[in-house]
Every structure is written in structure tokens, then in C-alpha cells.
């Protein structure tokens, strides 16, 4: 039994490592924060991480098939601008707008998938190009930042459950007894977990998902085993598009506006890759998963949280941030030094 547990942990070293690192960083941060462990701080933290977490999840799935999606940041930006146009009006219209936004992102992902599978273009390049296209479209939709998404929605979606209830006046403004256990949970966190787990866990138990892992691990074998390779690849990029759109939609709600920011798109793509790696997913594909990447995103964010509570020369902060990132990803080297059979290195 205990042996089994040990084996499982060993098989998911990367993930376990990420979890531990996260726990350490988070607890340290919260305990030195003047208002550590308070709802306000949790809400703030989750608000900051949601968009990145979604994009990191999006990145994970193409990475699992051994590809990379350099368009996730751009798709987030594109959907962000779309949302800033369509998520307005009556609640019904807003809901419709949200669906439209997610649909658009999913379609874009589907397009990536089709190009990769039927165009036979390496994912990394295909998405580099489609990413540029996405940014172009975003710039057309929002030549300059703007759009106003309903303020209540913004307030409700970026707060704790209590304020949510209060804003929309249900559970008698969040004072009902049944809701008390939840009032302090940040809404953004709920959104993130519900969407991520709600989509991923069922998907994980399909042959398509199994094929995604198989492709990343040994495409030839997957092919000989008669697995639906094309379907799986297309699914991977489509899902990536969907999750990137979730990021874009939330970003739009959070900033109640749309902004076709080229640099920001780039930042998010690169950070998504960093999150995936920190989360213990191998860029070779085949091992890991979105949950890990979510934690990777948390880790990435927490690193910068520290600058706000410690006094560090502002002109040294970028350096420190860079070094910490470098060291964090270099922890992956521990594996290398455990490897006694050097051939094990070349997998």
C-alpha cells in the first residue's frame, strides 16, 4: 500500500515537486503579509492568477502531444477584445456574449488544430503565425483600449462569494445561513476550478485524451495501436483555444474592457510555457497535466508577490525575478543527476 503511494509519487515527481514548492512559497508569503490569510488578500491573489492560470492550462494540452501553442496569449487577447464588444447589455445578452467569446476562441483553436494536422506544419511555427493573425484581428477590433463591461459583473466576478451574492441580491445578500460556509471563497478561484476541473476531469477519461498522452509519449506506437491521432491533435488545440478564451473572457470582465496589447500577449504566452514547466509537465509531451500547470501559474505569480511586501531596490527586482525563475526551472536538473544510465537523459 505505502509502496504503491511511493510509486505514484515517484511517477509524478514533477507535480509533487510543484505542489511542495507552491505550498512553501504561499505559506511564507501569507505569513509575512500584514494581512496574511485574510479574504481580501486571497481575493486579490486569485484575481491576479486566473487569466494566467487559464492560459497555462491552455498551453498544457498541446504540450502534452509534444507541441507548443505560441498563440495562446494572442488568442486570449483576441477573445478579450471580442468580449469587450459583446459582453454587454442585459444579463441574457451578456451570457450570450460570453458564449460567443468562448466559441470564437474555440474556433480559433480548432483552426490551429486543422492547420497542424492537415497542413502538416509543426505546431510551434503554425501557432507562431496564427498568433500574429489573432493579434492583428484584436488590433482591428480594438484599435485602442476601451469598451465597458457591466460594472456589477466586474465587481461580482472579482470578489468573494459574499459580495457576489450581495451584488445580485440572492441568498438574502449573502447573509443566508446555508451560504455562510462559502462566503469567504474568492469567486475567481471558483470560476477557475469549476471550469478547469469541470472540463478536464471528464475529458481525461476519454480515448481522445489517452491518445493525446500517447502521441506525446510515442506517436509511432499510438499510430500502430490504431488510436485516433488526427482527432486527438485537433482536440488538443481546440481545447487550448477554449481555455485561452476563458482567460480572455475573464480578463475582459476583470478589466471591464478590451485591450489589444501586443506585448501583453507575448508575456502571457511565455509565462504560460514557464507555468507548464514549473507544473511538472514535460515539454517533450506524454507526462504531466493542466492541474500541475495551474499550480505552476500560482508559483510564477507568488514570486512577484514578494516584491510588494519586502523592500527590494526596484531596479534590482527584474534581476531577482529572472534569477528565481531560472533557478526554479533548473530544479528540473535534479532528475538529470539522479539519472545513472546516461541514455536515460535523451528521452
Amino acid at each position, binding site marked *: 500500500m505505502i509502496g504503491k503511494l511511493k510509486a505514484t509519487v515517484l511517477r509524478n515527481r514533477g507535480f509533487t515537486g510543484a505542489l511542495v514548492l507552491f505550498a512553501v512559497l504561499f505559506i511564507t508569503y501569507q505569513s509575512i503579509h500584514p494581512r496574511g490569510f485574510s479574504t481580501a488578500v486571497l481575493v486579490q491573489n486569485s484575481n491576479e492568477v486566473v487569466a494566467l492560470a487559464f492560459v497555462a492550462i491552455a498551453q498544457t494540452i498541446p504540450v502534452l502531444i509534444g507541441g507548443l501553442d505560441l498563440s495562446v496569449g494572442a488568442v486570449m487577447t483576441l477573445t478579450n477584445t471580442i468580449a469587450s464588444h459583446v459582453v454587454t447589455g442585459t444579463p441574457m445578452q451578456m451570457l450570450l456574449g460570453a458564449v460567443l467569446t468562448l466559441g470564437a476562441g474555440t474556433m480559433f483553436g480548432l483552426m490551429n488544430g486543422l492547420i497542424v494536422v492537415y497542413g502538416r506544419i509543426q505546431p510551434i511555427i503554425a501557432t507562431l503565425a496564427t498568433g500574429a493573425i489573432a493579434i492583428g484581428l484584436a488590433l482591428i477590433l480594438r484599435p485602442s483600449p476601451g469598451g465597458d463591461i457591466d460594472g456589477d459583473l466586474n465587481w461580482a466576478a472579482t470578489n468573494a462569494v459574499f459580495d457576489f451574492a450581495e451584488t445580485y441580491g440572492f441568498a438574502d445578500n449573502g447573509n443566508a445561513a446555508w451560504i455562510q460556509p462559502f462566503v469567504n471563497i474568492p469567486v475567481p478561484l471558483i470560476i477557475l476550478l469549476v471550469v478547469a476541473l469541470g472540463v478536464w476531469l471528464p475529458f481525461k477519461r476519454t480515448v481522445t485524451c489517452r491518445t493525446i498522452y500517447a502521441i506525446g509519449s510515442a506517436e*509511432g506506437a499510438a499510430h500502430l495501436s490504431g*488510436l485516433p491521432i488526427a482527432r486527438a491533435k485537433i482536440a488538443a488545440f481546440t481545447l487550448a483555444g477554449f481555455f485561452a478564451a476563458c482567460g480572455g473572457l475573464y480578463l475582459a470582465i476583470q478589466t471591464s474592457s478590451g485591450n489589444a496589447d501586443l506585448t501583453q500577449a507575448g508575456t502571457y504566452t511565455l509565462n504560460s510555457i514557464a507555468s507548464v514547466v514549473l507544473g511538472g509537465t514535460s515539454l517533450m509531451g506524454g*507526462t504531466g497535466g493542466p492541474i500541475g500547470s495551474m499550480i505552476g501559474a500560482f508559483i510564477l505569480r507568488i514570486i512577484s508577490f514578494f516584491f510588494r511586501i519586502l523592500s527590494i531596490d526596484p531596479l534590482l527586482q527584474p534581476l531577482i525575478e529572472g534569477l528565481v525563475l531560472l533557478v526554479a526551472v533548473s530544479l528540473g536538473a535534479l532528475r538529470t543527476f539522479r539519472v545513472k544510465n546516461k541514455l536515460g537523459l535523451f528521452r
Partner: protein
Amino acid sequence: MNSSDAIVQLRGVSRYFGGVTALDNVNFSCKAGSIHGILGENGAGKSTLIKILSGVLGASEGQILNNGKQVSYRSTAEATADGIVCIFQELSLVPDLTVAENIFIDQPPRRMGMIDNRKQRQMAVELLARIKCEDVDPDAHIRELSLSRRQMIEIAKALAKNPRVLILDEATSALTSNDVETVYDLMNELRADGVACIFISHRMKEVDALCDRLSVFRNGQHIQSFDKGGLNETEIVQLMIGREITAQYPPKRSTPIGETTLSVSSLRWENSLKGVDLQVNAGEIVGLGGLDGQGHKELLLGLFGALRGMTGEITFQGGTYKPSSPAQSKRQGLALVPEDRKTEGLMLEMSIGDNILLPNYKSVSQAGVINGRLANEAIAKAIELLQIKVGSADDPVETLSGGNQQKVVIAKWLMLNPDIILLNDPTRGIDVGTKQEIYRLMRDLVEAGKSVLLYSTDYAELIGCCDRVCVMYDGRIVSELEGDTLTEEAIVAASLNIHKDDPA
């Protein structure tokens, strides 16, 4: 033959790869409830044949019939659905998925449309029991398993699809003798259940033991089919390689052994090598025998510098020698022909020439710049020496068949003219003809005063061409057999470590 009761049947099937004709107007059929062996040299077209049967490749010409009705499968999935299941020469397991997931990879048990992991696991346990692999943890990742174990899982995977036609393409090449037994029993069961098995192997013994009917292929053509016992071994081999063959193994050492080339004492690494003592002298072929996973591979890799943290004394050519990396071992005069030519030995998509030159650029460059003329000469010489069947030295290696690929691996090392060459099961999946050429080559090397250390899964081979055989058991060398003591019985006994003077 009357094709009425044939379950699968090929009519005038041909397959071309660019210029190469892999199959040439083949008519072939096999009956339900029989085991049908297919024999042929490397490149004879065996794999191509079964790849066409099982939907991996399409036929360029001709038609395929299943139970009399014509079919053309566009994917293995379609073939499987039709009851045709194949175990391919190149394994089809996914390293990062668990054993259970691999066994039921494309048709897992479902509940409400979703994979039912518990059920899958328990079904896997049952299957593993059926193939006598209870030791394998269904949750283990394939990565963690040895090659022989993987081949057994392959078989389990095939059984899980309860096939009506089961095809094994050299599926037993890496199996240890007792696993092979298990497979025999299974195939006999299946035959009893009316399943048709197509069995491809280069081990005459196995084919003999199992098959009811044999078909011989030679460069793409179906030469002849006959019932078991219809022809004797030499006749069969003759059909396969299309010429008279003389004694299978070259005569043993004629020259006296020279001084010690390599001597190893109490070599330890992790828990695979537990104090190996070994001597290899100039002018002799030393064999490594024993069951799978007793540390042969580690020993060879370790000597070649691919393992870290190995302890023990090694002297090589009189000097102490500490293997630290293949590059350094190469310079010292060692060479290694690795276990898996496809992933460790060759750059499949690179040209034959580049593959041969890979370790040798120093020798064909002047002042760090490659001299084209020297390079081409060197390549031509190597191809000539090993009689590699190539169209042009610029073709990718992947277009060669297994045997010729293996020759390329050996060729690139011979160019360095090493003092000792370590071979890890070099004749696995290689046809008789090529095997003989390789045996002869080894013999020539040692005649020229070099040394050879040969690990083989094939006992006959060890007995046939080694001057001395060291049998490994549990990371140690438990006995050395030479001359008359070198018999199959002796090796088997030693492999199982049943000795009157047993140390352990």
C-alpha cells in the same frame, strides 16, 4: 492449395516504396485454427506483408480477402474491428502510459461513455495472469519494464482484442526461453479455439516447434508454402537465401589466444552489476549468456562509458581504464553495437553515408575540415566490406531492412578498427544469411588479433561462434564454459544458477 477454408487471403498483392519493390505479386492465404510461419531474409517483405494485412500500409496492387469478402483497411483500427490483430516488429506500446492503459488502449471498458479505470485494471490483472506475468504491476509505466516484459505486454494487448487472426512479427525476438514457452502454450490454445496465427521469426527452432504450415519469402516474392516437416532445415534455409549454405558457423579459433585485452574485476553498478569478473583476450570471441535482465546490457554499456557511478577495476590494453563517456571509450579503442539499432544505433532519417561516418569524422578530415574524397572512399570501403545492399549511400538508412541496418551499425565501428568490439544481441531479428556474414566478420576480426564480447539471447549462436561463454546470473558471472563444457544444457543450467558449487 484450396483457398475455400482460408480465413485471410492475398491475391496478386504488390507494394512499392518509391523504387524499392517490397512485395511482388504475392498470393498468400492462411487457414483458421492453424499457425502459419513466415520465413525469409531481412527485407524479404514479411513485415510489409503483414502491415498490409493489418491496415498499416495499403497495397499498391492486388486484393485482400477476409472470409472470402474483399476488404481494404485504411487503419489498424479497421483491421482490428475485423478481427485481424498484429504484434508489430517495432513495439506499439506507449512508454508513459500504464500497463493496464496500454493493454486496453483503444477499446477501454467504459461506464456511461467514460473509461472505467477500476474495471480496466482488474481486466488487466486477469490477462497478465493468463500470460504468466503476475509480477508486472498493471499500474507500472511501460517505461519501467524490460524489453522482454514489454513484448509480453504486447501479446497481452493483442489477446485483449480477442483476435480471429493473430499476427506476430518477430514478437518473440527478445523473449527469454521460459517466456517463449508461455507464448507457445498460448498460441496452441488459440489454435484450438480456431484462431489463425501468422508467426514471423528468424529462429528456426521456434518456427519448427510451433507452425503447422510454413511460407518462405525472398526479396518480395512468395517462394513456396508447405506443411511442417515438408522440408528439412537446410532446404528451407536454401529457399530463404536462394543459395546453398555451408556450415552455419565459421570454424572456431585457429590462432592461439594473445595477451589479455580487457580484464574486469568486481565491477559494480546500482543493483544490476554485483561484482563482475571477466577477462577477454586478443583473438577470442567471448560470449555472454544467461536469462534476460541479469546485467549483460549494463555490463556492455558500463564498459562503453554510458553508465555513471560504476566501481571496480578495469584494465584495458595493459593500462587501467576508467570509462567516463562513449567518446572517450571510442578513442581508447572500444566499440559498442547497441541493443536497439533503430533508436540507439542509427540516425534513421540520415543517409547511410552520414551514419557510417558519424564516429569517424576525425579520420576523414584535415585540419578540422572534411575531405570529400576521403569521406566517399571510406564509405565505399565500408559498404563493400560488409556487403550492405544499398541503392545509393545517400539514401536514408530507414529504407534498409533490419539486417542491412544492423550491418551499417557494425560498419561505422569497424572503420575505427577498434581493439575490442562489444555486441549487444547483434543478430536479433536478422535472417540466417546476414547472421552468417556477421559471424564470419567476428571471426575475421579475432583472427586479426582483435577481441569480441558478444551478448546473445540465442544459445545456439553462443555455442556456435564463441570460444568461451560467460553466463551471467543476478549481476555476476556464475560460470565460464569452454570447449566441450560449452553445451546448451550447461548454459541453461548456469542461467538458472543451478550448480552443485553454488556460491549464493
